[in-house]
C-alpha cells in the first residue's frame, strides 16, 4: 500500500471505529438507515472513490475500492457504501454523471424485453437497500448501462440473515434517466459485486480474528487463559490462515482488474475475480465456525458483537454467487485450458 492508500484506510477506520457500535448495529436491524453516518461517508468521499476526478470523484483504482470495502466489512457498516461506490464507478465508466442521492444497484441483467422505449418494467430480487434508493442502476443484456428513476416502482421489504435490506423492487414503466455503453459485459454487476463482497469478507474475517484472540487471552477456564490451550491455539491459527488467504486473493483480484479489466473475452481479470469469491465464500465456513467455537456461549448471544459479523459473513458468502458457482466457473476454465495449459493461463 502506498502512503495515500494508508491515509485513506486510516481515515475510514477512524470514522467507522467512532460511529459504528453495537447500539447502532442493533437499531439498524429494525430501521436500516442512519442519516448521520451516511452523510459522514459521503463527506469522506467514499461513494466517489472510483469516480474519475473530472466528475468530482477521487479517481481511485480498484485497490482503493478494496480498502473501502474491506473497512466496511471490518466494521460491519450497516449502510450501502460499497453498492453506492460500485454504482458510481459504473456510471462513470459509461461516461455518465452520477445522480444525487442513494443508488439502488440492480443485481440482475435487464433483458431487452424489459425495455420499452425509454422505460423499464421488470422485477429485481434482492436489491440492497432498494427501499432507500433514490434511483436505480443496472446493466442491459448488451452491456448498456441504464440509470432509472423511481417513478412507477414499488418495493417489498426483505432482508438477509444480518437483517440488511435485500428488497424486491418492481419497476413498472419506470423512466430511463440516462443510458450509455459501459464497455463491460452484461454480467459485470455480478462479477464486481462478488469482488466487493470478497473484500468485505476479508474485513469481517480480520475482525473475527481480532475478537477471538482478545477473548481467549482474557477468559480463563481450568485456571488458565483459554489461549494457552493447544486446541485453542490451533483454532486461532486456522482462523488467521483463512483470513490471510481471503485477503490476499481479494486484493490480487483488484490489482488484476486494474491491469486487465473486465472484458468477457481473452485473458481479462475474470479468473482472479472468480478465485477471490470462491476462496472468500468457502472460507466463511471455517471462519465463522471457529470464531464461534473459541468464544463459547457468549459468542452465540445477541449482546456480543461477534454475531454482527458472522451473520453478515453467512449472507455475503451467497450474495453475488457462492463458492460452488465460482468454483464451477474455474473448473470450466481448467477443463478448457487442459492440464498442460492451466498453469500458463493462471500465471499469464
Amino acid at each position, binding site marked *: 500500500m502506498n502512503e495515500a492508500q494508508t491515509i485513506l484506510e486510516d481515515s475510514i477506520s477512524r470514522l467507522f471505529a467512532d460511529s459504528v457500535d453495537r447500539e447502532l448495529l442493533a437499531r439498524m*436491524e429494525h430501521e436500516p438507515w442512519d442519516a448521520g453516518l451516511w452523510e459522514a461517508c459521503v463527506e469522506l468521499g467514499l461513494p466517489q472513490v472510483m469516480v474519475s476526478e473530472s466528475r468530482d470523484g477521487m479517481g481511485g483504482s480498484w485497490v482503493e475500492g478494496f480498502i473501502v470495502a474491506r473497512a466496511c466489512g471490518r466494521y460491519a457498516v450497516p449502510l450501502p457504501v460499497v453498492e453506492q461506490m460500485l454504482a458510481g464507478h459504473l456510471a462513470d465508466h459509461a461516461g455518465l454523471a452520477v445522480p444525487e442521492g442513494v443508488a439502488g444497484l440492480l443485481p440482475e441483467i435487464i433483458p431487452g424485453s424489459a425495455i420499452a422505449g425509454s422505460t423499464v418494467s421488470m422485477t429485481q430480487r*434482492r436489491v440492497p437497500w432498494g427501499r432507500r434508493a433514490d434511483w436505480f442502476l443496472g446493466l442491459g443484456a448488451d452491456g448498456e448501462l441504464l440509470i432509472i428513476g423511481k417513478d412507477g416502482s414499488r418495493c417489498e*421489504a*426483505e*432482508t*438477509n*440473515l444480518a*437483517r440488511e435490506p*435485500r428488497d*424486491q423492487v418492481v419497476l413498472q414503466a419506470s423512466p430511463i434517466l440516462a443510458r450509455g455503453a459501459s464497455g463491460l459485459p452484461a454480467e459485470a454487476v455480478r462479477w464486481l459485486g462478488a469482488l466487493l463482497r470478497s473484500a468485505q469478507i476479508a474485513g469481517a474475517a480480520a475482525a473475527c480474528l481480532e475478537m477471538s484472540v482478545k477473548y481467549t487471552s482474557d477468559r480463563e*477456564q*481450568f485456571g488458565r487463559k483459554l489461549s494457552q*490451550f493447544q*486446541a*485453542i491455539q490451533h483454532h486461532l491459527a486456522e482462523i488467521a490462515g483463512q483470513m490471510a488467504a481471503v485477503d490476499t486473493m481479494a486484493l490480487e483480484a483488484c490489482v488484476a482488474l486494474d491491469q486487465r479489466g473486465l472484458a468477457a473475452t481473452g485473458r481479462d481479470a475474470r479468473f482472479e475475480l472468480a478465485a477471490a469469491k470462491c476462496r472468500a*465464500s*468457502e472460507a*466463511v*465456513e471455517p471462519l*465463522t*465456525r471457529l470464531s*464461534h*467455537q473459541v468464544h*463459547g*456461549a457468549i*459468542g*452465540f*448471544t*445477541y*449482546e456480543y458483537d461477534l*454475531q454482527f459479523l*458472522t*451473520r453478515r459473513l*453467512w*449472507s455475503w*458468502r*451467497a*450474495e453475488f*454467487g*457462492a*463458492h*460452488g*458457482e465460482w*468454483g464451477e466457473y474455474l473448473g470450466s476454465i481448467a477443463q478448457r485450458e487442459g492440464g498442460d495449459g492451466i498453469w500458463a493461463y493462471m500465471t499469464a
Partner: protein
Amino acid sequence: MTLPKEYGGHGRSALERYVVVEETLAAGAPVGYHWVADRQSGLMVARLGTEAQKKSIIPAITSGEACFAIGMSEPNSGSDLASVKSKAEKVADGWLLNGTKIWTSNAHNATHMIALFRTDFSPDAKHKGLSQFLIDMKTVRGITPRPIRDLTGRGHFNEVSFVDVLLPPDALLGREGDGWNQVTAELAYERSGPERYLSCFLLLSELIKVLDGKASPSALAKIGAELAWAATLRNMSLSVAGMLNEGKDPSLQASVVKDLGCHFEQRLPGLAQELVAMEPTLSDSGIDYQQVLGNLMLLAPSFSLRGGTLEILRGIIARGLGVR
C-alpha cells in the same frame, strides 16, 4: 417413553425411544417443551429419585406438563464445570441456595430444574463437593430467570439468579457429594441422541428436492458422500442407544458421535450453498429450502458448544484413548 410404567411412563426401551425420536425429528416436529425431560431429566429422577420424587414428578413428565431446565453452566464455569461456585448450604429446614446459573435453555418456561450446586466448600473438594438438586421452579421463591437473546434474536437461554432460595430437605437428587458422577451420567444422555445429525437432515432432503434431479455428477458425488455420513452417524447413534439399553456407560462413544455429528451439521450449509445458487433467508422471504438453510446457519455455532464443547469432547476421547 422409557420412564417406568408404575409412574405413568411407557416402560419402553432406549432403542424404542430412539425410533420415535428419530421420526419426530426427521419430520421437523415441535418437541421443545418436553424434550429435556424426556431425554434426560426424567431418567435421572427415575434412576436416582426418592419414591416421593418419582411419584410427584414422573407423572407430570409423562403427561407433558413438566418442562425441565438444565442448571449446570455458570458465568465462570463453562467447560470447567466442576469449578461451579453456586452454593447450597444445609440449614435447619432444608437447603439454602445462592448463586447464578447461565445459558440455561428454557428456564423462563420451565416448571422444574435439575441443578448442580456446591455443597462442600473446602478447597480440595473440587469434584467431590458437588450435589444435584431437583427444583420446583414454580413454587420456590428467590429464583429469577433473565432471558438472554441469542444471535437469532430470540430469548432462548437465560441467566438464572438464586437469592436465598430455600429448598425442602428432600430436594436433594441422588446422594450429597455425588453430583459430579451424576452430572457425567446425565451428559451421556444429552450427548447420545439422534438430534446430533437429524437436525440437519431436513436440509439435506430439502436440498435434494430443489436440485430436482438436475444435479451434476460432481454435485451428486458430494451429496452422496454426506448421505453416507448420515447413515454412518445413524448407526453410531443407534449403538450408543444400545449401550444405554444394556445399562452400560457410553460416555466415550457418545462423545465420538457428537464430535463427528456436529462437523456434519456444520458442514452441510456450506455444501448446500456450493450446490444451489439460492441465498439463505429468514422467515420473511424465500422458499422452504432457503428458510431451513437460513435457520440452520444461524443455529450451527451452538451445535459444537452446548452439552460440552468440541474441544472438551476431544479431551474425553483422548482420555479414552489413554493419551491423557
